[in-house]
């Protein structure tokens, strides 16, 4: 029986080392997904407010059932109150990463964090 450690060939070690480095590098890169820049509030799918995530603000959005209260703090936002029966979007708490979304389905209001590297406002040639 040859010991396991002698099985890989020289190039194998290189490949494993490169792959390990790649995996390690992918952790922070993909996990952050860019910088959270603004909170997008939608009602019935249409954007009603885009809030800058750099300062504190509280807004009320009138939905199908009543008012959803959205609180913005530097770098994060949440649905603080909602008239919906199950309160899923409220219990989701603070959202801080781009792409994160809290949907108050009964009230037809959603709060999404936007920003990051892969978004373009416009591209012209």
């Amino acid at each position, binding site marked *: 029986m*040859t010991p*396991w450690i002698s*099985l*890989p*060939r*020289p*190039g*194998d070690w290189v*490949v*494993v080392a490169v*792959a*390990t480095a*790649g*995996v390690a590098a*992918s*952790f922070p890169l*993909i*996990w952050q*997904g860019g910088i959270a820049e603004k909170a997008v509030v939608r009602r019935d799918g249409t954007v009603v407010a885009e809030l800058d995530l750099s300062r504190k603000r509280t807004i009320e959005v009138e939905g199908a059932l009543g008012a959803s209260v959205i609180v913005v703090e530097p770098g994060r936002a949440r649905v603080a109150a909602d008239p919906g029966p199950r309160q899923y979007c409220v219990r989701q708490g603070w959202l801080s990463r781009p*792409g994160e979304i809290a949907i108050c389905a009964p009230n037809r209001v959603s709060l999404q964090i936007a920003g990051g590297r*892969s978004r373009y406002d416009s591209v012209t040639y």
Partner: protein
Amino acid sequence: MTRSPTEIVLVPSADDHRIARLAAAAIALSLVDAAIPLPLPGVKPGLANIVTLLVLYRYGFGTAAWVTGLRIVAGGLLLGHLFSPGFFLSLSGGIMSLCMLALAQWLPPRWFGPVTLSVLAAFAHICGQLLLARLWLIPHDGVFMLAPIFFAAALFFGIINGLIVARLIGEAETTKAQHA
């Protein structure tokens, strides 16, 4: 009884028998794979790749492609997910890792052994699955949030499977040497 003139007689060649036998081994391993509980859906040891790699080394790329294709279709049949999203995920992963192996088999074998092929195939497999998931199943970049975990799993299981293949090849060669 007279033979029907339209009767088609299939005569399986030795190649067909071999491919069927190897595919059966791969299917058995993919059933074992599915039975191993792991915390995250999508993370699997990919034991069937051991068979793919062994076949690639012993019989060449064509046989390996056949074995993989049969394993995916028949495995889907046995696991009950034929033509479901899970089936297409394993199909896209299988195609991508075969493409990767088609290229990687030309690496100089003095320097790059089964571990390299296994790791490369594992990464190609998960990349194919992630791409299909992003394009079709979950059209949102949130899919890629899980990518680091999948990559880590691909690396880990790729190394382990590669070591197993290296050992199996080594043992086959020693027995051959002893018998010679």
